[in-house]
């Protein structure tokens, strides 16, 4: 499976964090070293190296993705389980990721409200690492990888709470995969990585196709590619048609979005 990540989203995230930190709104409750973006604590100055901060977020994503395979937990999950559970059809293997929290508070005993806030944040548009809004599109599947002192009852409570506001495809109404890892990331008491197979990736692909077609129609820059041994124009046309097919699949799924869930007739047994 593929986890597309958008530089624009990453930049938006670090700017937001910057804004919050520099405006002093967070006060003394935020631990300076706990920011997902900080590598060496340079706080007050505007980010001179934004790519470092952005890459830091991606690095954290990878850490959280593999944490359950590296550390113990009450419900382990490895990379194979991710592709097994989140890829219902071979072509639809693009996952939107979101990471929370992006900073921590000094208060060690996080009351359930803050914990629940972490879950809500994971589904908000601002925390996605791709410019997409999963809440208003159709979910095919969703995985929640939790780290830290979070138990199964907390996860269940939050799933129950958030389910009504999310739309799942008709054949996967309870399409949640959860994993619990006991060891939290450095500087945090708990964290959540949400991976969603959601039709909200469609606009990203459509935009990509549009930008591609703008250049391709004029055959701009094409000769540089065609000069290379083995590269032919058919590669371009195949790429476009494959992308179009993918967009079409997402369209078909979206069309089923608001349809009522119907139970299909079951096998009947002669007694």
């Amino acid at each position, binding site marked *: 499976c593929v986890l597309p990540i958008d530089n624009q989203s990453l930049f938006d995230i670090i700017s937001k964090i910057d804004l919050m930190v520099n405006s002093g709104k967070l006060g003394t409750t935020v631990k300076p070293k706990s920011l997902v973006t900080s590598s060496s604590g340079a706080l007050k100055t505007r980010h001179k190296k934004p790519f470092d901060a952005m890459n830091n977020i991606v690095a954290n994503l990878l850490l959280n993705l593999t944490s359950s395979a590296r550390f*113990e937990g009450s*419900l382990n999950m490895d990379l*194979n389980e991710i592709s097994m559970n989140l890829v219902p059809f071979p072509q639809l293997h693009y996952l939107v990721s979101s990471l929370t929290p992006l900073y921590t508070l000094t208060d060690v005993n996080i009351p359930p409200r803050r914990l629940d806030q972490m879950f809500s944040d994971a589904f908000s548009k601002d925390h996605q690492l791709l410019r997409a809004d999963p809440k208003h599109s159709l979910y095919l*599947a969703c995985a929640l990888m939790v780290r830290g002192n979070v138990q199964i009852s907390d996860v269940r409570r939050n799933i129950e709470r958030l389910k009504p506001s999310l739309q799942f495809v008709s*054949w996967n109404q309870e*399409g*949640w995969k959860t994993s619990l890892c006991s060891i939290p990331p450095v500087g945090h008491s708990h964290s959540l990585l949400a991976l969603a197979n959601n039709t909200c990736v469609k606009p990203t692909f459509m935009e990509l196709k549009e930008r591609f077609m703008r250049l391709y129609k004029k055959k701009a820059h094409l000769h540089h590619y065609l000069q290379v041994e083995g590269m032919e124009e058919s590669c371009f046309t195949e790429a476009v048609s494959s992308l179009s097919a993918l967009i079409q699949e997402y369209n078909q799924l979206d069309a089923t979005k608001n349809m009522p869930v119907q139970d299909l007739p079951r096998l009947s047994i002669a007694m």
Partner: protein
Amino acid sequence: MSIVTVQLGQCGNQIGFEVFDALLSDSHSSQGLCCKRENEAYQASCKERFFSEEENGVPIARAVLVDMEPKVINQTLSKAAQSGRWKYGQHACFCQKQGSGNNWAYGYSVHGPRHEESIMDLIRKEVEKCDSFSGFFIIMSMAGGTGSGIGAFVTQNLQDQYSNSLKMNQIIWPYGTGEVIVQNYNSILTLSHLYRSSDALLVHENDAVHKICAKLMNIKQISFSDINQVLAHQLGSVFQPTYSAESSFHYRRNPLGDLMEHLVPHPEFKMLSIRNVPHMSENSLAYSTFTWAGLLKHLRQMLISNAKMEEGIDWHVRPPLSGLPSLGKMSLNKDLHFNTSIANLVILRGKDVQSADVEGFKDPALYTSWLEPVNAFNVWKTQRAFSKYEKSAVLVSNSQFLVKPLDMIVGKAWNMFASKAYIHQYTKFGIEEEDFLDSFTSLEQVVASYCNL
């Protein structure tokens, strides 16, 4: 006679640890409410069933641990060793580095055959250590890849290689709202295979045990460890030694055999559930007193109304009046539904147990017409109390209680199957659409049979 436990996957291993721990701490408990000689006989019987002796006196659990990744087994082994009171055999485990990816097909078709020899070898060694061998107790979950897939494969192998021994599978029914997205597929594949190769399926639903933790035990932040401890308590109250019917001076020799004989009269009906009273947190226990009459009344109503725990029992449900024609096919949508039983076993432990009156369970209206209550109902009474409860009663029941959950899982799996979602993950490893259809057919058959009781 001894029981060999096979713990499969993360779930199986985590639960297995809690079960052995509960069994041993109960057998060493000082609140047995009986004389010393009695207590020693109890301990000896418990030890013989579940543990083998080592030189320096630390009992070793008669268990084989199997998992496709090492972390859980390592944790389980060290937790047992840390307790100081018991441990697992050093070479009793088999693990790989890879995991099964929640894929039943991978567990059944790839891991199973690949590691068949090593796993069966370990099991054989454990069986050979027993002086007299009663059967297997296999702990697994339905939702994952290892427990479900390898569990199904191993049980089939055990049926081939140990056809004279009994096999009881302890299955964990996953939460209704997702732990694993493909849990419904994994569940129906597991259940249909186990129905053919296992002798009895003892089912625990995560949702039900979760409610027990929340409502009866008052645990605020429920962890899997809490859930597993409740489970272990229930299993312990069934598997700890009980008197045999013939003489009240000897503990029963063949628990598995007796359980099967009483509860599985017909191979079409294999699903068993456990309900126990009372069950509460230690704090509450200090302030509670119980009477046998009260406990048994609650237990009977729990059976009739299909309640999973002592709280929130629906007292309106009543058995149908005898003499009326049977109500025909059970409607799955009826609210006030009466739970018909095939067979029931009540195990009573504790003070004044001989005075407990179980007549309420012998009512023919509770049972299906083709079995007389005298054959359908049994009671085992033991003086020695279990785990801090002065009086405790546990009901092991073969009844219609699982029809609704089974129907739901089959329904959800069917909907998903109709859209062909995730099927490519299974066909990759040799489980084809026909295999799915076979599973659906067998389970629809089971649902129909139970409905028509």
